[in-house]
């Protein structure tokens, strides 16, 4: 019997098929798990070191380049002020008679937050005007710095940079102490400014060849301020000096912000690496060894009906050898059968029949052999093979998130059939429609994936989505954009349900929570990486290019799914059917479940799309942030979810604690929005989105688990999966309503007031949720509290 002659039957082999030696299996599993985890940790540690080193170098380079940029700005501000003063000088007004100078300088400081102070002194160093923090520093420099040589040619007729040959203070021990911020020494310097030059720690001349240009202006770091001085001249006479100061802390602050960005970039890169390393280890090590171990377990159990699929390298060699053994055993038994058959025909007197029977029985009784249909091929897969394509898919979709509202703005023109359509509504429309389509596709795709297989639906959905993204990038008007974006949403719904079903197919009830964690992990990782990279890309290659890039990633996801998301030969069918109206009615008649939907699940989804997807990019853009920054701020949502989601399930195990947690989480989401009243700026948004992400992570992790416990009778009647399907469909209507509702609010209120309204309503929803459930509980309706929440039902 050769391999060619075997007509292979591919069957999944599971533990239940074999009477395996459990102790041996455990030993093997622990050994292999340790081996893979160590390999993974080594890889991640090396990547962190390398990425950290690159980021450190990058930060170093940036800081070197950024400091002179601030000084250039100080010089430009100085020259602009000097230019204005110059006009007054031309009019013959003496400097000391200038009226409203403080207000004028205040205006400049307000318009240029990077500038700490502007001080004007006379030539003897006496302060005439000054505004801002750190003026004492400038006064510390008010030594008689009259030029030794002829003053350089004036700029704008009456301004000149302070000559670089102006006396520079010798660096003494005292000055060095001042430089590092010794308050006593600093005070000493401040009480002696007129008699002793101020401590000069560092002179930075912004280099540029040529004369009389602002780039030649010298900045001096004194007591924590970069001071940029300019001479003011009336005609040929030097009449005053202008000092513009930049606080060293401002530059440090900018560098901290840069460092924060570098840390985020590092984190994104590590997450991407994590996903691909996971895939590589799963594909190159875990899958072939897993199948080999199954084959060994079968052999130890006397089962020689299985063969391993072809592989390469040493795995391939050992697979081949194990397959040869299987064939040899089968061949031997076949030979014995044939010989026995021949002998039986010769055994005319029946002398050897009994012996023959014993021999053949011996050969066959203890063994499971290849059947008439041929050998069964050992099959195995890993959820990682659906996780990586899903990660890529979500990554691609989320890439568009930071710039999508801006993209809609760029192509928007009210259609002829609806000329009064506002931009706000126009931005919300594609978001809402896409959510509606994705929600409606969920039950349809579930049935389709039962019929055509998870892989096919994933691939098909990803291809549809990629096409939608490409076409979205080419859209020249609003209607085209809305159509193509919705096409992309069709694929979105298909891919998600295909992945979810794949997890269900390949996990047992006990391992389902872990399987869903793998699935959610891919979504969270994509949520984090997508906006961050998408924002950078949009800044660099534009909207259309970013759409094409996202489409190419979606194609890559489709390819990975096609190539690696291998399905069990006969994938399970989850007995799905389209939800009926009576199912909705049945569930919504349960007051507890209605409360969950109306006061927790739907408001959460409304805020997810209305606040996070729609309003946040708009608000951040209105603050002057580019797409890259918008992307990074949006990323905070995923980051919060990444850290909170894994711990939520184990923290709240009873129905009562889950209800309290969900109610509190809803209020947290409301508080996150209310916080923006206090701090309506970019940093406020970072804090708000992080808090919002924590609230969403807690609520969305626990809500599905509450469905069977709040509506046990209804769930039993409909079936767990069907009840959850209906619940999710209603919940997803919130994602549809969200952008439209926020657009409506924006038409009547400012962005900050919209935050306030949404936040207050959300916080109220949280309170209502807990109150209504407490009332229902006192009425004694529904199940008793304290029973364990069925986390597994989340699937």
């Amino acid at each position, binding site marked *: 019997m050769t391999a060619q002659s075997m007509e292979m039957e591919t069957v999944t082999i599971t533990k239940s098929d074999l009477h395996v030696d459990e102790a*041996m299996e455990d030993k093997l599993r622990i050994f292999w798990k340790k081996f893979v985890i160590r390999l993974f940790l080594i890889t991640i540690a*090396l990547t962190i070191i390398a990425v950290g080193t690159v980021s450190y170098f990058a930060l170093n380079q940036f800081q070197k380049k950024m400091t002179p*940029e601030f000084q250039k*700005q100080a010089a430009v501000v100085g020259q602009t002020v000097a230019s204005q003063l110059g006009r007054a000088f031309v009019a013959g007004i003496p400097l000391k008679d200038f009226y409203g100078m403080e207000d004028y300088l205040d205006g400049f400081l307000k318009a240029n937050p990077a500038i700490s102070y502007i001080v004007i002194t006379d030539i003897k160093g006496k302060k005439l005007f000054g505004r801002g923090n750190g003026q004492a520093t400038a006064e510390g420099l008010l030594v008689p710095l009259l030029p030794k040589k002829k003053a350089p040619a004036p700029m704008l007729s009456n301004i000149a940079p302070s000559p670089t040959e102006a006396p520079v203070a010798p660096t003494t021990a005292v000055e060095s102490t001042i430089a590092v911020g010794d308050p006593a020494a600093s005070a000493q310097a401040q009480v002696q400014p007129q008699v002793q030059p101020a401590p000069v720690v560092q002179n930075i001349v912004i280099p540029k060849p040529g004369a009389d240009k602002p780039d030649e202006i010298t900045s001096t770091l004194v007591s924590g301020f970069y001071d940029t001085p300019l001479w003011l001249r009336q005609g040929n006479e030097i009449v005053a000096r202008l000092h513009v100061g930049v606080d060293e802390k401002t530059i440090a602050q900018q560098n901290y912000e840069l460092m924060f960005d570098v840390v985020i970039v590092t984190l994104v890169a590590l997450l991407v690496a994590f996903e691909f390393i996971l895939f*590589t280890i799963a594909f190159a090590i875990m899958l072939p060894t897993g199948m080999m171990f199954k084959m060994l377990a079968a052999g130890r159990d006397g089962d020689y009906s299985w063969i391993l699929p072809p592989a390469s390298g040493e795995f391939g060699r050992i697979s081949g050898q194990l397959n040869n053994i299987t064939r040899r055993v089968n061949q*031997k038994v076949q030979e014995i059968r044939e010989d026995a058959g021949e002998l039986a025909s010769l055994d005319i007197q029946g002398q050897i029949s009994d012996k023959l029977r014993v021999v053949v029985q011996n*050969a066959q009784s203890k063994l499971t052999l290849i059947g008439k249909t041929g050998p069964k091929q050992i099959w195995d897969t890993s959820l990682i093979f659906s996780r990586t394509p899903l990660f890529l898919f979500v990554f691609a979709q989320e890439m568009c998130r930071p710039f999508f509202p801006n993209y809609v703005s760029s192509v928007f023109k009210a259609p002829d059939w609806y000329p009064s359509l506002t931009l706000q509504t126009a931005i919300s429309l594609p978001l809402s429609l896409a959510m509606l389509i994705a929600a409606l596709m969920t039950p349809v795709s579930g049935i389709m994936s039962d019929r055509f297989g998870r892989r096919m639906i994933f691939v098909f959905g990803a291809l549809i989505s990629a096409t939608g993204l490409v076409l979205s990038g080419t859209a020249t008007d609003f209607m085209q954009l809305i159509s193509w974006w919705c096409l992309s949403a069709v694929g979105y719904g298909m891919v998600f349900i295909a992945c979810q079903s794949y997890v269900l197919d390949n996990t047992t009830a006990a391992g389902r929570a872990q399987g869903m964690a793998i699935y959610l992990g891919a979504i969270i990782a994509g949520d984090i990486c997508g906006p961050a990279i998408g924002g950078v890309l949009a800044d660099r290659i534009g909207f259309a290019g970013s759409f094409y890039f996202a489409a190419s990633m979606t194609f890559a996801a489709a390819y990975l799914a096609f190539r690696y998301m291998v399905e069990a030969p006969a994938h399970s069918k989850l007995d799905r059917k389209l939800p009926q109206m009576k199912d909705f009615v049945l569930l919504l008649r349960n007051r507890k479940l209605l409360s969950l939907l109306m006061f927790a699940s739907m408001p959460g989804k409304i805020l997810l799309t209305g606040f996070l997807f729609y309003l946040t990019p708009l608000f951040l853009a209105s603050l002057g942030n580019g797409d890259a920054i918008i992307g990074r701020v949006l990323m905070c949502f995923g980051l919060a979810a990444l850290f909170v989601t894994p711990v939520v399930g184990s923290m709240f195990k009873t129905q009562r604690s889950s209800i309290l947690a969900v109610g509190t989480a809803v209020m947290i989401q409301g508080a996150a929005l209310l916080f923006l009243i206090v701090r309506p700026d970019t940093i406020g948004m970072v804090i708000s989105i992080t808090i919002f992400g924590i609230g969403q992570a807690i609520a969305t992790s626990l809500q599905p688990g509450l469905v069977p416990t709040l509506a046990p009778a209804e769930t039993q009647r409909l079936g767990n999966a069907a009840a959850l399907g209906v619940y999710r469909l209603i919940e997803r209507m919130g994602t549809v309503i969200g952008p439209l509702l926020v657009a409506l609010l924006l038409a009547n209120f400012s962005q900050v007031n919209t935050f306030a309204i949404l936040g207050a309503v959300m916080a109220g929803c949280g309170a209502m949720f807990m109150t209504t459930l407490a009332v229902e509980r006192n009425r004694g309706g529904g199940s008793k509290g304290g029973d364990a929440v069925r986390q597994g039902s989340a699937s």
Partner: protein
Amino acid sequence: MTSSNSARITIAIVSIMAATVLLTAYLNFAKFETALGRLEQNRYGVLFFDLRDTIERSLKLGASLNALSSTQDALERLKDLEDKIQDITVFDDSGVIVFSSTLVSGKQKVPANWASVAKATSGPVWYVEEGSTVVMGTSLKNAFDKPVGGLALQYSKRDRVVAANQVFFRLGTYAVAITLVLSIIASIIFMLYLRGISRSFTRISEWVRPLGNKSSPDLGAESPTNAIEEAVLHYRSKTGETIKELESNAVVLNEMEVKA
């Protein structure tokens, strides 16, 4: 896992690590370039907004744009202040240049794309990049807050590009060097780490090969060094017994055949 498997796994993982390092470098560079561009915009913004405010003050007194004769002088002075400024233009609401620091002759119009970009931008300032030139523009409004024209400042981004290129080159060099060092170190570490399991797989291959041969398996006494080897030896022992039993059954059958 022989060298081929080890090498393949090592190459795959090291490639991902290298790509991650290069991605990090690129993303950091992109961030730096954006920050540098923002600072440059702020710097020119100081001059730009000061000029806009000056012009609008005059407009709010009721003067028409064409009548602001001192504007030409102001534009020229501002251009002299900073040699990266290529041109400053004041244009009316139909796009016709009214004043320009480069003293254009005749009634020239500003490029058409400025108007479309200005229209598409929601904020008060719009930007257009044309080759190495950045155009910063805004509308000029009269006392009734009605746009009567626009102001555009064109500056060269060459210095910024040069600075960014320097950082790109330096960061790129670091990234490539780190990638190379990482690749070498990681390859050595992975090879060393996978060596043990590679040896195990070689031994396993040696142990199971005789079972598949035609000849009777000669199973020597082996001692396992890890759980995988133990599992394979267990399998080998069971399978060896099975094969031997089958062989002996075959011998019995042969004897019977001879007898028959």
